[in-house]
């Protein structure tokens, strides 16, 4: 089903090198950059946020190109969107509303 879109090999390679570069960027952001505390958000939270944001970009590339989400029936995207939504629900409930801070 995926034959009908020209030659895909160059985009595979492009994605591959992008992933490599972003990986290095992640390490650099974690190792070299020390984010300052911004308002009530501690710097280390920003660090991990940047790390995960880059991870999200990488993962999107993997899914859209390597896993062909970009070319396949758009319905398949729901298999990603819905879990991501539920993860956000879970994470939000656990982290932002739950008062873990008062726990010793």
């Amino acid at each position, binding site marked *: 089903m995926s034959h009908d879109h020209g030659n895909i090999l160059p985009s595979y390679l492009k994605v591959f090198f992008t992933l490599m570069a972003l990986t290095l960027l992640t390490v650099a952001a974690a190792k070299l950059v020390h984010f300052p505390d911004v308002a009530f958000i501690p710097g280390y939270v920003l660090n991990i946020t940047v790390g995960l944001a880059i991870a999200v970009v990488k993962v999107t590339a993997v899914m859209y190109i390597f896993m062909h989400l970009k070319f396949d029936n758009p319905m398949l995207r729901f298999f990603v969107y819905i879990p991501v939504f539920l993860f956000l629900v879970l994470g939000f409930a656990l982290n932002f509303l*739950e008062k873990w801070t008062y726990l010793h």
Partner: protein
Amino acid sequence: MSTSTLQHGSAAEHGHDHEHEHHHDLPWYRKYVFSTDHKVISKQFMLSSLFFLFVGGAFALFIRWQLAYPGQAVPIIGDILPASWATNGVISPEFYAQLLTMHGSIMIFFVIIPFAVGMFGNFCIPLMIGTDDMALPKLNMWSFWLVPPAGLIMMAGFFTETGYAAAGWTSYPPLSAQTGLAKFTISGQTLWTISVFLVGFSSIMGAVNYVATVLNKRAKGMKLFDMPLTVWALFITAIIITLGTPVLAAGLSMLFMDNFLHTSFFLPDNLVTNSTYFGGGQPILFQHVFWFYSHPAVYIMILPLMGIVSDVMATFSRKPIYGYKAMVFAIAGIAFLGFIVWGHHMFQSGMNPLLGTTFMLSTIVIAVPSSIKVFNWLGTLWRGNIQFSSAMLNALAFVSMFIIGGLSGVFMASAPVDIYIHDTYFIVAHIHYVLFGGSLFGIFSGIYYWYPKMFGKMLNETWGRRHFFWTFVTFNLTFFPMHILGIGGHMRRIYDPNVYDFLKGLGGVNEVITIGAIALGFSQLILVGNILWSMKWGKKAPRNPWKANTLEWAAPEHPGHGNFDMDITVYRGPYEFGVEGREDDYWPQWEKGASVSVKHHTVAVTDDTKTFGAH
């Protein structure tokens, strides 16, 4: 394509060849044991669930004896009970905890879910969408064959030093983390964890298969909105399983490690029971993870039955289901909302009260789609022509008992009311009204309805009605008084209520419940007797005994491998009963013919295209 229905004669012959091929080529163990035929797998699920229903029920009867007559020896079998269960025939407190845990776990993981999803999912989906089998038959087979080992593993808890798991079916740590035991101890609790992990995996395997089957294998002409509500409900249930169960699996993995390796995902610092783990964990976190699955799981246990009951009610009211699309959206709405209400089990757990508000509001909202369903069922009966078959009676019991169970859910949904009734018998009453009164009556209804297609024989109607009558009466006798216990403050999971002064007045209620429970248990023997008797001596079933519309009734009397003996093309929705301009009051989906829609009615345009009657 369109000519194919005309050739049903020759197709039938081919179907026969087809059957022969398969039945003679396969060795017996591929036909009856490791079969990939969805109908055989469905029967396997049915058998194992029936078996576990009695196991779980026997545990319940022990529970009931102890509560009504605390401190008295169990009659008849008291003397032969093992010493770890009872001293001089009197159940011990530790064993009581094991009893209620095993009762809840078996009923949920080995009875209701396998019945609702395993049995009906397997039987109904391929037949009702007019195809020969599941999308991935092998995977389907494995999804069943994980269940018996999982059951054995759970039951094997008996042979460990600590006995069965004893932390309730919810298994909250730290109690379930058993920090007092040494590392690498195999206890009932670790076996419980493994077992539930396995059934969870089995569920997921089944569910991905259902999703693929419904999306990919529908018969020609069948649009999504031509699917019967049973298929819709099973499809959406499969999605819930796919997304919810793995979260439980994650929680169980962590619980297992806490148990077996003394990690501390759910264990805080400085518990006095043990010192070999590190602390830093949060007990409440497990509850979040557990209920993130287990609340959707209660809808896993009811949605398929809601679908089945809708089909049964339409058929026996000889009427289209009222508001078909509204029903579909209600199912989808329940499924969606089901994922954002889990915290209502944790109002008093010490989670942030702000979350309590959020979850209370979402829980109350989830009652709305349920109300829509109830009203549409009532609407379906309106101006129908209602036949009181056993299947219909059980479906009506489902609707009415679900109303009671759902209304008690609204009490608990209100967080401040839940302060008092949380962890009392009010909850136990709710559980059984929705799970027995709802799910199990729905299951009975489905069994009565599809038994002819499953076994090629009719069930005995008289005994079917007797079974219904006794079950319905004793069910209410057993579980309605539990509301009273709950309002009286009677806690769940207590071994002996007489310890408390404020519960002293409730002993009589407990006795009534127990008498009801014993009668209820023995009423189920009627069902089993009927099933076994009819398999051998039942009347041969006609092709379409209920004069129903959905595709499974196009299949032969006792369909073999490959299901159908004719090509299936779908021409209309599943609920065309009482169509104007037709002689019959039903109009099967597979029958050719045109119609027009006039103001909420369907009117047949021509009737002469009728090609296949199921008389």
